[in-house]
C-alpha cells in the first residue's frame, strides 16, 4: 500500500489555512441561499484564509480556481459547499490531489440536496448553511491525511439469473475472456423471453434469437452454468466475494444425461398429468421432463413431488431401465453446496408478472376464457401447448377478443408504476391473434405508450390493420348477457372516454395485459447481496442517470427487469453495461477503497474485548501475548460500530474520529 508522503503529514500539522468555496450551482443554490452572505460569514471563521463563490464549482474553471488558490495561498484545508458529497466529493478530492494536497483534507457541505432544494425561505436556508459551513470549518481543521486502500480484484464474475439479461451479461464477459458462474434457479435458462412467441416491434421469433444465445451459454468453455441452483450466502467485499451456491438435486446426473428423453417416454405415467410450469399450466408434463424443447442445459429433471418413486418408493423405475447404461438417473441425489470466489457480481433476477386474481372484476380464474398475456404468448407459440393454434379453454375459436391494458399497472389499488412493455406487447398480441384467427380485436387502453425505435410505427400499422382501440379503463368483465348477442360470451363493460359513453362489448376471449412486478423474494435477494430496493421493491441503482447499473455495494451490478420494468432491448443494453462495469473493475486489477477504517491505539487499549463481538466481519482479534485487541485493516469495512462501542475511547475511525464529529456537532450548534 502506498505510504502517505511525510510532506503531506507535515503540512496537515501546520496551522490550518482553509479555503472555503461556495457553489451557486446556477440558481439551484444561489436562488435560495444568500451565497454572498455565506462567503462573508466563512471569511471570518477561524483558520479561513480564502472564501469565494463561483457559479459552478465543479466545472473546469471552478476546479482551477481552487487549485490555483491552494498554490497561491498555501491552503492546507478545503471546504466545498455545494451538492451532496455522494455526487462530487470524488471530483473535489481529485482537485486537492492535483494541487499536491492529500485528498482527505477536504470537507464537503451539502447545501443543495439538504438546503436549497428543500427549503423555501432565504433567511432560514442561509442560516442553516452558515451552521453547516461553520461545522465543516471546525471539523476540517482536524482532518488528517489518509490513503485509500487498494484491494485486488478476483477476475471471476458471478451472474445471478439466466434470463436474457443474465445470458447476455454472461456471454459478453465470457467472450472477453472472463470466467463466469451463471446461477439460475429454474432447471433451464431462458427466463421470460423463452416463453414468448414473437418480439415487438420486428416480430422476429423470440426462440430464433434467444436459443442460439442459450446454446452458446451452455457450451461456452468459460461459463459455469449452474441451473436449478440458488445463491445462499455472500461474504466478502468488492473484488473478493465468497459465495455459497446451493445446487438442488434434479435426480439426474447432469454429466451423464444426454437429453435423449427416452426416460420421459418410458415413464410409468403413460399420459402426462402434472401442470407444465413452462406453459403456465396450459399443458401437462410427466414427473420426469425437459422444461421445454430448447431448454439449456438439455438435461431432464425429476419432480419429487409427483414422481411415484419418491411418493411410494414402489415404482417400477422404467425410466432407469430406459436410461440403461447411461445411468444418469439417481434417486439418491442430495443437494450440494458449492463455494466459489468471485470479484464482481451481476444481478439479473428479473421480474414476475402481476397476478390478475387481485383484480377480481376482470374475472381471471373465474371465467375460463380470461387469459393473462403470458398465457396467450404460450397459446400463440408454435411449440406451445396448442402448437400455435388459438384454442380456447372451452375448445372454441374466438371470433372477438378484448385485450385489457394496464392490469396491475398505473393503478392506485395495485401498482402505480407503468410497466412500460404492455402497450407494445398488447399490440403484438393483437396483431398475432388477428393474423391467426381473423377475430375482431379490441384494445382497451388508458394511454398508448409507444416510445421506442419502430414502436410508434408498429402502432400505426395496427391501426391500419383494423384492430379496434377503445380508450378507457375497463370496469368489469362478466358473463351476464343483457342481449341475445351477448349470450354465452364475455361482456366487457367500459367507458369509451373518446366517444363519451359506456359500452358493452361482447367477446369470446379476454387477454389481460399484466404488468411487471418485483420478484416476490426481491427483499431476501437484496439482503443477501447487501443492496437496496426502491419502495416498490425494484433493486436500487447507485444513480438513476449516471450509474444506472451500479449499486451502493461496490462490485455488485444490476441488469434487466430486476431494476425496473423494461423490454428486451433495454435489458440487453443494461446487461452489456453491467458486464462492461465488471470488466472495467477486473481489468484495472485493483480497486481503491475509502480509508474509513477503524484503528486501535495499542497502548490505550485495555484489552476488555468489548469490540470483538461487535464486528460482523471478524476484523477484530485479540492478541493473546499483548492482551490487546487489533483490527485487521483489510477486513474492516469502516462502519465505526466498534468505535462507538469502545468503553475507553481507544478505537478511532479514520475521517470519523470522535473529535472530528464532536467539532461538527458543536460547530452546527455554535450559533450566536
Amino acid at each position, binding site marked *: 500500500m502506498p505510504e502517505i508522503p511525510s510532506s503531506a503529514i507535515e503540512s496537515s500539522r501546520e496551522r490550518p489555512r482553509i479555503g472555503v468555496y461556495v457553489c451557486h450551482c446556477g440558481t439551484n443554490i444561489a436562488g435560495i441561499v444568500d451565497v454572498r452572505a455565506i462567503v462573508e460569514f466563512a471569511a471570518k471563521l477561524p483558520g479561513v484564509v480564502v472564501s469565494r463563490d463561483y457559479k459552478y464549482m465543479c466545472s473546469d474553471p471552478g476546479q482551477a480556481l481552487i487549485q490555483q488558490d491552494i498554490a497561491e495561498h498555501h491552503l492546507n484545508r478545503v471546504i466545498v459547499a455545494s451538492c451532496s458529497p455522494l455526487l462530487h466529493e470524488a471530483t473535489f478530492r481529485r482537485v486537492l490531489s492535483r494541487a499536491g494536497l492529500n485528498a482527505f483534507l477536504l470537507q464537503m457541505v451539502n447545501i443543495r440536496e439538504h438546503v436549497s432544494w428543500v427549503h423555501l425561505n432565504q433567511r432560514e436556508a442561509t442560516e442553516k448553511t452558515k451552521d453547516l459551513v461553520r461545522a465543516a470549518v471546525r471539523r476540517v481543521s482536524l482532518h488528517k491525511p489518509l490513503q485509500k486502500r487498494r484491494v485486488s480484484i478476483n477476475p471471476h464474475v458471478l451472474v445471478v439469473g439466466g434470463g436474457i439479461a443474465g445470458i447476455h451479461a454472461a456471454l459478453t464477459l465470457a467472450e472477453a475472456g472472463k470466467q463466469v458462474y451463471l446461477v439460475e434457479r429454474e432447471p433451464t435458462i431462458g427466463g421470460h423471453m423463452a416463453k414468448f412467441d414473437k418480439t415487438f416491434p420486428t416480430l422476429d421469433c423470440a426462440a430464433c434469437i434467444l436459443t442460439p444465445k442459450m446454446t452458446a451459454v451452455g457450451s461456452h468453455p468459460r461459463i459455469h452454468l449452474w441451473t436449478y441452483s440458488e445463491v445462499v450466502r455472500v461474504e466478502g467485499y468488492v473484488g473478493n466475494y465468497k459465495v455459497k451456491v446451493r445446487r438442488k438435486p434434479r435426480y439426474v446426473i447432469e454429466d451423464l444425461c444426454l437429453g435423449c428423453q427416452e426416460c420421459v417416454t418410458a415413464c410409468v405415467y403413460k399420459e402426462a398429468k402434472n401442470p407444465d410450469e413452462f406453459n403456465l399450466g396450459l399443458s401437462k408434463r410427466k414427473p420426469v421432463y425437459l422444461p421445454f424443447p430448447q431448454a439449456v442445459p438439455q438435461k431432464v429433471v425429476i419432480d419429487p413431488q409427483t414422481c411415484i418413486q419418491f411418493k411410494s418408493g414402489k415404482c417400477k423405475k422404467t425410466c432407469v431401465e430406459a436410461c440403461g447404461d447411461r445411468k444418469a438417473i439417481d434417486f439418491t441425489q442430495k443437494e450440494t453446496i458449492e463455494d466459489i470466489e468471485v470479484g464482481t457480481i451481476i444481478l439479473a433476477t428479473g421480474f414476475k408478472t402481476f397476478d390478475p386474481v387481485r383484480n377480481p372484476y376482470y374475472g381471471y380464474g373465474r371465467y375460463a376464457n380470461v387469459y393473462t398475456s403470458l398465457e396467450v404468448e404460450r397459446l400463440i407459440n408454435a411449440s406451445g401447448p396448442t402448437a400455435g393454434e388459438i384454442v380456447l379453454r372451452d375448445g372454441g375459436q374466438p371470433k372477438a377478443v378484448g385485450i385489457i391494458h394496464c392490469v396491475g399497472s398505473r393503478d392506485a389499488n395495485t401498482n402505480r408504476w407503468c410497466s412500460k412493455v404492455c402497450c407494445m406487447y398488447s399490440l403484438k398480441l393483437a396483431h398475432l391473434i388477428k393474423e391467426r384467427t381473423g377475430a375482431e380485436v379490441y384494445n382497451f387502453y388508458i394511454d398508448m405508450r409507444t416510445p421506442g425505435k419502430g414502436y410508434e410505427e408498429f402502432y400505426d400499422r395496427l391501426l391500419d390493420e383494423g384492430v379496434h382501440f377503445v380508450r378507457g379503463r375497463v370496469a368489469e368483465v362478466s358473463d351476464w348477457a343483457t342481449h341475445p348477442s351477448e349470450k354465452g360470451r364475455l361482456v366487457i363493460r367500459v367507458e369509451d372516454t373518446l366517444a363519451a359513453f359506456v359500452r358493452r362489448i361482447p367477446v369470446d376471449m379476454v387477454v389481460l395485459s399484466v404488468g411487471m412486478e418485483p420478484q416476490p423474494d426481491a427483499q431476501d435477494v437484496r439482503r443477501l447481496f447487501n443492496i437496496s430496493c426502491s419502495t416498490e421493491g425494484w433493486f436500487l441503482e447507485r444513480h438513476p442517470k449516471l450509474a444506472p447499473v451500479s449499486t451502493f455495494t461496490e462490485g455488485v451490478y444490476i441488469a434487466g427487469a430486476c431494476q425496473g420494468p423494461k423490454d428486451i432491448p433495454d435489458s440487453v443494453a443494461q446487461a452489456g453495461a453491467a458486464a462492461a462495469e465488471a470488466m472495467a473493475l477486473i481489468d484495472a486489477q485493483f480497486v481503491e477503497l475509502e480509508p474509513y477504517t477503524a484503528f486501535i491505539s495499542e497502548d490505550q487499549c485495555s484489552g*476488555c474485548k*468489548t469490540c470483538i463481538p461487535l464486528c460482523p466481519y471478524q476484523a477484530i482479534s485479540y492478541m493473546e501475548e499483548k492482551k490487546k485487541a487489533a483490527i485487521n485493516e483489510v477486513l474492516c469495512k469502516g462502519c465505526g460500530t466498534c468505535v462507538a462501542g469502545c*468503553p475507553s*475511547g481507544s478505537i478511532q475511525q479514520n475521517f470519523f474520529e470522535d473529535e472530528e464529529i464532536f467539532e461538527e456537532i458543536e460547530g452546527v450548534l455554535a450559533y450566536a
Partner: protein
Amino acid sequence: MPEKPKVAFYWCASCGGCEEAVVDLAEAILDVIAAVDIVFWPVALDFKRKDVEAMPEGSILVSFVNGAIRTSEQAEMAHLLRSKSKLLVALGACAHLGGIPGLANLFDRESILKAVYLEAPSTVNPEGSLPTTHHKDDGHSVELPGFYNTVQALNQVVEVDYSVPGCPPTPRIFRTALQTLLGDELPAKGTVLAPDCALCDECPRKDSKPEQLSIVEFKRPQQLLIDEQKCLLAQGLLCMGPATRAGCEALCVRGNMPCSGCCGPTSRVKDQGAKILSSLASLVAGKEAAEIDRILATIPDPVGTFYRYSLPASLLHRKQLDRASLHEAAASK
C-alpha cells in the same frame, strides 16, 4: 537550607475518605511531611481561613482539594486556594468528577431540603424550619453558607491543574501523584494522575473474559454466588471496569465486587456513563425491541449505575427540572 514547598489540604462536599487516604500513606506520610511544609489542613491542623487569606498569592505550591462544590462556602474556599496556590489538585472522585454527592443532581435544592428537613422519617422538625443563609437571634445576625441547586466538580468552579482519581485515591495512586507533582517535570495541565488505560488492563480476571460476550441478563451482586476467578461481566454483573481508568489495581474486583467506576473515564472519553452504556448495550443479546428492553430492565437505575461518580462532570451535568412546573411557577409569580 532552602524553604520547603508549601502544601495545603481542604475538604469540600465529601465523606472524608480522601483525608483518610492521605493518612493511609502510613509510614510514607513521614517522607511527605519531611519533604513539604503543610500550611493548611483543617481536618488535622489548627490553621484558619484567615491564615490562608493572609498568605501571598501563589505562595502555596500545591493545594489538594477533595470533595465536590455544593455550598457557597466551598466555592469561596476553592477560589481562595486557587489564588494562593501554584497548583490546584482535585483529590478524589468528588473533586475530580462530582462523586457520590453529585448524584444529588438528580434532584433540585427544594426537594432535597424538603426530604431532609421535613420528610425524612428520622426528622423531628415540628416548626418546619429550613436552612437559611441569614439568621437573626437575640439581636445578633449571622450569615451562613448557601446551598447550591447543583453539585459541581472542582474544575467546574475554578481552574484545576491536575486530578487524582479514586474514591478514595488508593495510597499507590496518591503516592505516585505526589511524586509526579514534586518531581522536576510536570505533566500537561488537566492531566489525571493515573494510567490512561481502562481497568481491565490491570484486572486479575482479564484472561477469563470470553471474546464473544452476549448479555442476556444483568445481575446484582446479591443475586448470585460470585465466582472469584471469572470476569464479573461474564457472570452477568455490571462491572464498570472497561470504561473506568486504571490505577487502583482493581481493588474492588480483588474483593469480589464489580468496579463501580470511581476513577472516572480515560482522557479520550467525555462522558463515562455514555461510554459504558454504549459498550454494554452493544453486547446485549436480542434484536427485537421487547427482548432488548427485557434485558435492559435488569439494570434498575441506569444513571445511578453509570454515573455513580461522574454525574456533575457528565455532559448533561444534572437532571433537567420539570419545565412545565417551571413555566407554571414563572406564570404564578
